[in-house]
């Protein structure tokens, strides 16, 4: 199967569990804000998987390489993209709540109009 060391296996397990917890929260979590948090937990799990894969290199002492810089650079890019996507999602959420609380009356009017 695999000859990864104990610590790496532990982090691999944690990464998979984080993804699972995030998916569960995304399905369950009643509020939209909690669903956005759950999405961030999923992305944390995926990033952790990539960093563990990058760490594999330095785990084997024979080659004496540093951790894989390509995967780490990808995760660094991913972190910034994830936070900007979160900010956009939260802005959309705030807009949704604002307009659903303010414009509920006009919205109902619009819905009833075609029925006439």
């Amino acid at each position, binding site marked *: 199967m695999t000859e990864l060391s104990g610590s790496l296996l532990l*982090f691999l397990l*944690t990464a998979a569990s984080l993804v699972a*917890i995030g998916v569960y*929260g995304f399905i369950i979590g009643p509020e939209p804000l909690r669903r956005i948090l759950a999405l961030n937990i999923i992305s944390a799990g995926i990033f952790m*998987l990539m960093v563990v894969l990058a760490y594999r290199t330095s785990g084997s002492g024979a080659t004496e390489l540093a*951790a894989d810089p390509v995967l*780490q650079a990808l*995760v660094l890019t991913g972190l910034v993209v994830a936070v900007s996507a979160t900010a956009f999602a939260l802005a959309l959420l*705030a807009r949704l709540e604002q307009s659903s609380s303010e414009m509920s009356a006009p919205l109902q009017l619009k819905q009833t109009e075609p029925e006439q």
Partner: protein
Amino acid sequence: MSLLLFDTLLCGLLLALALASVLSRQLSHAVILYIAFGLLMAMAWARLAAPDLALAEAAIGAGLTGALCFTALARQGQLALSPVVSWQQRCWPALFVLVTLSGLLLALLQIPASPGPLPALVLQELAGSGVSHPVTAVLLNFRSWDTLLELLVLLLALLGTLQVAPAPVRQNSWALSRSWSQLLAPLIILLAGYVLWAGASQPGGAFQAGALLAAGAVVLKLNKQLNWLAWRNIWVRFFAVAGLGVFVIAALAAWLLQGLAAEPVWLRWPPQLAKYIILLIETFATLAIAITLTLLVVAEQPDTPLSLETQDSAGGSDD
């Protein structure tokens, strides 16, 4: 052995915090637990030999995301208990997730323990990249497409957020936090400059410096400082776009310079100029990332024709 104990503790804490954040009855608890989770993630990155990620995560994952979520919480109004999810509603998703998790673990255990050829290739080509830190070399030389497109994603997210941004939450700031934040500002600028400069040879670089600057600017903005840092300021707009613009111009210039040689390749720096090109791009990218992240987090409704509010009603002015 003690390292394994530390790892077990760290992983256990991470899982417990994530689970508690998902399951907690109150939304504010979920947000606070998530911020603690972000801080521990930074520690996990440091443990997994990724100090670049630890720096970025501490500023982004814990700092900026926390500020974002608290702003969203403040917009929710009164903090009510979440609606109760019944036992049956929890049961089926849990079963589904458990099946997915076991499949995921089966797939993950097939991963070979030896890495691919890429890390060795990076080390081999590092001398001609212009910097001596491998992660910076990958970000700004070997895979600069990613960074270029990432700056574009940031800009698009900012434009989208500015369009839909709702009215800002009015809040007062303490005199104490205002004076502390003023004390913090020069330190943040100094630290961000150091991190940017260190990125050539050590962990650090444009993203970490930009995130640090943004975190400091957000603290100041929340304390009603830095009023010039808003989308209506033409220089702020210029520098928010300049990160991408300088990158594209540098790529074009490098492409034209290479045109004299046999086969020009897009986004490949000439080795003797690479150091200066990377420094130029990183400086402007840092400013662009800092400004964009700050505006994304504070997300003030701009007083421009861009915002929906001004399109809907002509009187939607903001100070």
